[in-house]
């Protein structure tokens, strides 16, 4: 009577045992046989690492959210994905008078998702609204006033000559929202209504987001080619790779380095390595002894083996960078950058003259990769006799400590979209300069000069000078530039991934 139960029990035990054993055995014998359903040609499914914190333009600084903002919104000038230079978007040209008055001519016949026609009044309403949002000053602070000259002409006046205006207009805080909805207090987080190539259809929290192509998109060249766009949230790297192999998704926005070899071996999948300007940096508190001494900072800079970090913490995917600025910008330079050299490191320690064993460098880390990086720095600096403490913490505490200057070392990434914004951070008295960052009157003067230089070549020379001077001071240590890995189904084409981390999904199309 109970035979079948007994049989079942034995089978269960057997399955568990065999399963565990097969789990133990190494090798690639068991490729998932998820089977590949024919790719639905009117849908693009993208795997994201985490849920976007917000879909609005004005209350976040998240890369994922900005990526999604780009689907539903446009700006007057946008940062081109390839050149990282500002190019026309909703405006088609501009002119500058008196170095502070910028007049933009706007494209006509542009529609918002709700049917409203885009005009200069929307620009005025958007920028005025953005200026009221706390935290937006970095992107709107230079703007003194905005006025609509007529329906398709808008004039922006800056406080003083400011070369970064076009870049600032390309930031998500200045993405154009319809005036009528701003006035109504519309919740753009639930319904991000803009002029962009896609419209949000639904958002299943923690799980997926669905978009649909916007038929009336103004830019015929960049109108969405795939009708349905779906984002699925898959936090685990291996899971994203498997989802792609099994045909559950068509594009993986962030591939984990550990999965690249396997994905490359799959004939249905292409892996893209995107060099980025995301510069992961070790910041040291320049106000804390002995890190106030450039000799100590330079010694540490010379002693950190970037390749160890890339191999050990990043599975080999990263680009060595020694300069304080990311390579790849218009104006980047490697001049005076300290490259890995232990002898030099010891020389600088001697120049400082203290006992290395008295140096203690606690490094705050906000995620696992950074813990891994800090752990490698720990063993690197042990060779100089410098003690490093790895201090992992949640993002909130990490920010609080960092912004309050309550840190000695902190690993953070720094990825502004242009070289001017980049060097502006070396100014000692900016809202985005933290306690303990560089404080040098000479550099401050140079930064001010660069900002006010509207002439491109002259500004470029100044930026290069700032970078090489800052390299000598080593207020912070660039560790590596991220290489972001994307992977997609082989039939997917038109893929453009920018060095700032964005992807133009509206340009994707299915081959055949």
């Amino acid at each position, binding site marked *: 009577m109970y035979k079948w139960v007994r049989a079942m029990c034995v089978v269960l035990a057997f399955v568990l045992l065999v399963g565990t054993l097969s789990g133990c055995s190494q090798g690639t014998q068991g490729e998932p046989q998820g089977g590949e359903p024919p790719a639905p040609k009117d849908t693009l499914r993208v795997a994201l690492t985490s849920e976007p914190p917000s879909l609005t333009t004005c209350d976040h600084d998240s890369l994922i959210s900005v990526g999604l903002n780009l689907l539903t919104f446009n700006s007057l000038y946008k940062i081109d994905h390839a050149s990282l230079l500002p190019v026309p978007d909703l405006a088609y040209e501009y002119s500058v008078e008196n170095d502070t008055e910028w007049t933009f001519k706007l494209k006509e016949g542009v529609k918002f998702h709700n049917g409203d026609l885009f005009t200069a009044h929307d620009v005025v309403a958007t920028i005025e609204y953005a200026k009221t949002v706390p935290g937006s000053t970095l992107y709107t602070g230079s703007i003194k006033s905005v006025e609509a000259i007529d329906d398709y002409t808008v004039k922006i006046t800056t406080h003083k000559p400011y070369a970064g205006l076009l870049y600032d207009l390309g930031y998500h805080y200045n993405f154009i929202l319809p005036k009528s909805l701003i006035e109504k207090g519309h919740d753009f987080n639930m319904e991000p209504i803009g002029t962009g190539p896609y419209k949000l259809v639904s958002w299943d929290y923690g799980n997926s987001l669905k978009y649909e192509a916007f038929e009336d998109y103004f830019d015929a060249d960049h109108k969405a080619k795939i009708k349905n766009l779906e984002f699925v949230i898959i936090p685990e790297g*291996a899971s994203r790779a498997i989802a792609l192999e099994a045909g559950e998704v068509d594009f993986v926005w962030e591939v984990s380095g550990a999965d690249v070899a396997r994905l490359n071996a799959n004939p249905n999948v292409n892996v893209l390595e995107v060099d980025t300007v995301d510069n992961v940096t070790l910041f040291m508190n320049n106000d804390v002894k002995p890190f106030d001494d450039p000799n100590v900072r330079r010694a540490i800079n010379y002693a950190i083996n970037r390749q160890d970090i890339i191999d050990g913490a990043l599975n080999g995917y990263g680009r060595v960078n020694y300069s304080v600025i990311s390579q790849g910008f218009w104006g980047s330079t490697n001049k005076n950058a300290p490259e890995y050299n232990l002898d030099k490191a010891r020389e600088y320690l001697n120049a400082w003259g203290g006992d290395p064993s008295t140096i203690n460098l606690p490094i705050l880390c906000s995620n696992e990769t950074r813990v891994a990086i800090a752990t490698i720095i720990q*063993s690197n600096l042990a060779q100089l006799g410098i003690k490093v403490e790895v201090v992992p913490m949640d993002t909130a505490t990490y920010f609080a400590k960092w912004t309050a200057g309550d840190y000695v070392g902190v690993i953070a990434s720094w990825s502004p979209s242009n070289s001017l914004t980049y060097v502006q951070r070396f100014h000692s008295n900016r809202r985005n300069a933290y306690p303990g960052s560089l404080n040098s009157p000479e550099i401050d003067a140079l930064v001010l000069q660069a900002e006010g230089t509207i002439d491109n070549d002259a500004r470029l020379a100044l930026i290069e000078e700032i970078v090489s001077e800052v390299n000598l001071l080593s207020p912070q240590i660039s560790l590596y530039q991220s290489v972001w890995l994307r992977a997609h189904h082989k039939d997917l084409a038109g893929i453009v991934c920018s060095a700032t981390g964005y992807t133009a999904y509206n340009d994707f199309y299915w081959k055949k």
Partner: protein
Amino acid sequence: MMKHLFRRRAEPEEGSMSLLQESWMRLLSNKGAVAGMVFLTILVLTAICADLIYDYETEVIMQDIPSRLQPPSLKGHLLGTDEYGRDLLARLVHGSRMSLVVSFSSVVLALAVGGTLGAMAGYFGGVIDNIIMRLTDVLLAIPMTLFAIVIVAALGANTTNLTLALGASSIPIFARVVRASVLTVRQAEYVEAARSIGAKHGTVILRHILPNCIGPIIVQFTLRIAQAIYNTAALSFLGMGVQPPAPEWGGLLASGRTYIRDYSYLSIIPGLAIMSTILALNLLGDGLRDALDPRLK
């Protein structure tokens, strides 16, 4: 989740040497309990001698990137190396120390606080009992793992806070157990006698009542340690417990998880360690309960 194991039937009779000996003999006749005890003894010894077996700084913490992710082998690293080239066995051995220390101290903390509260509630009754029991009602209405997570979330993730959090979340259980035990012996003749000759409350509780409730407390203690090992691993797995580079079993599992597809030993082995320890404690706990409760079997 192991509460079902210790559905209380009856309290042990008053402790005497012979009864304790009898219990001990009964425990020894339980094969599972003996196996559990042997395993735990070896584990505790390993944890104590961890520094003699593997040097913490050079073998457990220090990275050796060139030899990362080497699979287990008899020649090189017995259990393989992790993503930073560190010997997995060395990290397991030192991890056992971490797991045991955190679990043990959290349960001791819970016993001390919860036991005192429970003894007071049971002994004095009335308003004190009411207040303490309503408090434990509240604590018991929060799932334990969640409560620990909230405490760690507020205080920050490190070993001390983890111990505090786990301890705090076990307090109500000890309060309940001790109170129940105290209630059953409070009316016993020898307690009445002690009180009638004018002994102080503290003395009565410590000298006369607690020793006679020791059975259920021992059983509960063993099982709570199993639970604490689980929760230590769980919180570290979520990144809310012991922080790297310090080794802890749950933490090892969490970092091994990234490599589960190609280097599955990194997630299999730490899990086995956690499981066998909990298993051993459960076996011992079951055995203790049977041994201390003569009316069974």
